[in-house]
C-alpha cells in the first residue's frame, strides 16, 4: 500500500527546498490567500474544525492554542517553530526541514497572522547542520522575495522570522526550556502555569508548535478542514502522522500514514517487517519516553489513545526489538539517555535518573538483587513528582519494561541473560 502523502509530498519533488520549485507546487499561495482573503478568526476556526493536534508529543489542539494566544491582550506576541527534535528514535522533522523547509515556514506565516504576531523564531537542534543550512537559505530567499519582512506577500502584514540553533540539550525541546534558551539562558524549564499561550518567550503570549504541526497548516488552508479531519483513522484522529521506524526492521525510515494506523500495519506493511529469522519481542511506540509494548500488542493504534496501555504516542518514533534484544539492556539505554539529558534543576530527576542507571548496570553485571526490582518502582514513584515532563516520563519505560518482562529481569538477578546479549552473557 502506498503512503498517504500530504505533509511529506514534496519530499518526492526534486529540489522542493528551493523557493521557485516550492512555489511551483502551490507554495505560499495558501499563505497569500489566508492573509488577503481570510480573517484571523476564520483561520482559527478552521484549525479547530480540522482537528489538528500538536505533533510534538502532547497533542494539544492547535486551533485552541492559537485562540488562547490571540485572546491575550498582551503584546508583542510570538510564534515559534520547535525543531529541537532530540527524542531517541525520532527524525521526521529533520526530513521536512532539509527537504521542504518552506512548507512549515508558510504554516508559521499563517499562524502569525492568525494570532497577530509580527516576530517569530525557528529553533533547530545544533546537530542538524544540513537542516540549519536549508532553513537559513529558505529564510534568506523569503526575505529577498517579499515573503517575509514589512509586506508579507503583498498583504501589508509585517513578519520577521529568525533562525536560532540549540547546542546539544534534549531538554531544550521542552517549550519553556526552549524559551529560556532563546533568551540566552541555560535551558532549564519554567514552572507552568502560566502557560506559553500567556507567558512564553520574553514572558509574552507565544504560539509554539512542532515543525510537523506547522507543516499541516498550509495544507488545511488549501484543502479544507474536513479534508484534513478525514485523513485520520476513525473519528478521533485527524490528519496524517509521520511515523519514524528504526531498530530491528527491514526498512527503517519515515512513513506518512493516517493518524492511528496500527503498529502491525506500520511495522509489517510499510517497514517490511523484521529481517529473516528474527521474531518480534516488543516495540516502543514513541521514542525513549514511551514504555515498551509487547508482540501481543501489535494491533494497538498509534495515536494518543495508546495511553490506555500505559505508554504514550509521543513523537511516533517506533523502535522495534526482536528476541535478541535484552530488555534490561534496552531499559538501560533509556535510563542512560535520561540521566545524560536531565537538566539537573530538580532533585527527583537529577537523583532518580542515575539511580536507575546504577540498578540496571548492577542487573546487567549479575550483581542485582530482587529488592532492586522493587527499588526501581520506588524511585519511579518519587520521580513522578519531577518538575517537568522529562523526569515525569523518564522512569516509565524502565519500570514498564521490568513489569512486562519480569521473568527476564528476575533471570538477571539469578545471573543469566535469556536474550544472550547484555554484559552478563558476554562475560
Amino acid at each position, binding site marked *: 500500500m502506498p503512503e498517504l502523502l500530504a505533509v511529506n509530498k514534496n519530499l518526492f519533488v526534486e529540489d522542493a527546498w528551493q523557493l521557485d520549485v516550492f512555489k511551483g507546487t502551490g507554495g505560499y499561495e495558501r499563505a497569500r490567500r489566508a492573509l488577503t482573503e481570510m480573517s484571523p478568526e476564520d483561520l482559527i476556526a478552521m484549525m479547530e474544525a480540522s482537528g489538528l493536534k500538536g505533533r510534538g508529543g502532547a497533542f494539544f489542539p492547535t486551533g485552541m492554542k492559537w485562540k488562547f494566544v490571540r485572546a491575550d491582550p498582551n503584546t508583542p506576541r510570538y510564534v515559534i517553530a520547535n525543531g529541537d*527534535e*532530540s*527524542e*531517541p*528514535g*525520532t*527524525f521526521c*522533522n*529533520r526530513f521536512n526541514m532539509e527537504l521542504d523547509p518552506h512548507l512549515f515556514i508558510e504554516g508559521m506565516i499563517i499562524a502569525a497572522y492568525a494570532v497577530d504576531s509580527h516576530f517569530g523564531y525557528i529553533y533547530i*537542534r*545544533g*546537530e*542538524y*547542520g*544540513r537542516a*540549519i*543550512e536549508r532553513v*537559513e537559505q529558505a529564510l534568506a530567499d523569503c526575505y529577498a522575495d517579499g515573503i517575509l519582512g514589512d509586506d508579507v506577500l503583498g498583504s501589508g502584514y509585517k513578519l520577521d522570522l*529568525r*533562525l*536560532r*540553533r*540549540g*547546542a*546539544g*540539550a*534534549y531538554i531544550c525541546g521542552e517549550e519553556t526550556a526552549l524559551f529560556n*534558551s*532563546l*533568551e*540566552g*539562558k*541555560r*535551558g532549564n524549564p519554567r514552572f507552568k502555569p502560566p502557560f506559553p499561550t500567556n507567558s512564553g518567550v*520574553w514572558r509574552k503570549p507565544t504560539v509554539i508548535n512542532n515543525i510537523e504541526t506547522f507543516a499541516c497548516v498550509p495544507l488545511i488552508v488549501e484543502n479544507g478542514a474536513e479534508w484534513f479531519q478525514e485523513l485520520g483513522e476513525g473519528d478521533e484522529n485527524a490528519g496524517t502522522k509521520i511515523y*519514524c*521506524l*528504526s*531498530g*530491528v526492521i527491514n526498512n*527503517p*525510515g*519515515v512513513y506518512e500514514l493516517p493518524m492511528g494506523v496500527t503498529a502491525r500495519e506500520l511495522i509489517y506493511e510499510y517497514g517490511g517487517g523484521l529481517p529473516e529469522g528474527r521474531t518480534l519481542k516488543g516495540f*516502543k511506540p514513541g521514542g*525513549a519516553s514511551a514504555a515498551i509494548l509487547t508482540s501481543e500488542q501489535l494491533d494497538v493504534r498509534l495515536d494518543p489513545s495508546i495511553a490506555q496501555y500505559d505508554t504514550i504516542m509521543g513523537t511516533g*518514533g517506533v*523502535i522495534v*526489538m526482536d528476541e535478541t*534484544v535484552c530488555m534490561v*539492556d*534496552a531499559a538501560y*539505554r*533509556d535510563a*542512560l*539517555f535520561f540521566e*545524560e*539529558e536531565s*537538566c539537573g534543576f530538580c532533585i527527583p530527576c537529577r537523583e532518580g535518573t542515575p539511580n536507575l542507571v546504577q540498578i540496571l548496570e548492577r542487573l546487567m553485571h549479575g550483581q542485582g538483587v530482587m529488592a532492586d526490582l522493587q527499588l526501581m518502582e520506588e524511585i519511579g514513584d518519587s520521580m513522578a513528582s519531577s518538575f517537568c515532563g522529562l523526569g515525569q516520563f523518564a522512569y516509565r519505560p524502565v519500570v514498564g519494561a521490568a513489569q512486562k518482562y519480569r521473568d527476564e529481569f528476575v533471570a538477571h538477578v539469578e545471573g543469566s541473560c535469556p536474550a544472550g546479549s547484555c554484559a552478563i552473557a558476554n562475560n
Partner: protein
Amino acid sequence: MTQATGPVEQTQADQSTVLESLRTRLADLKDEPGSLLEALYIAQEMLGYVAPESIEIISEELGYPEAHVFGVVTFYTLFYTEPQPKHIVRVCRDLSCHIAGATKIAARARQEIGAHPGHASADGLLKLELVSCLGQCEKQPALMVNLDVHGPVTEEEVTDLIRSLREEDQ
C-alpha cells in the same frame, strides 16, 4: 551560519587578533536580544573552543555577567571550554543505534583513535564522544565527524574513516 566545531589552526600569537575580531563580529548581535548562544557559536568557531578570554569579551559586548555566560557555556554539550581536537567523532549510543551495533562501532572508533571517550588521541587530532540520539536513526548505527553524518556504518568503515581523517593531516 558558523560551524559548531571544525578545523581551527591557531598559534598563540594570533589569538589576540582573533579575540579582537570576535569583538567586531559580536557587533551584529548587540541589537538581537537573547543571542548569547549565537555569540558562543561564533567564539567557538574562531578559536575552536570558548576560551576564558572569549567569555570576557562576550560578557563585555553583550552585557551579561561573566558567570552567566560561563553557566550557559557549560550547560550545552556542543560548547567546549577547552581546546578540542580537530575531529570529534560522535557515536550515538541510544537504543536504535545500540540495537544496530553501535557498541561495536564505538569500540572500533576507540581502538582506532587510541583514547578513551572524551579524551584526545596522542596526536591530538581526534576524540571520541558517546552521545545521545543524533536524530539519524534511519542510518543506524550512525555517527558524526564534527557535524558530518555517516551511517549506517560498519566497523571496517570506521577504521577507514578514521585513517583517512588522519591521512588528511599528514
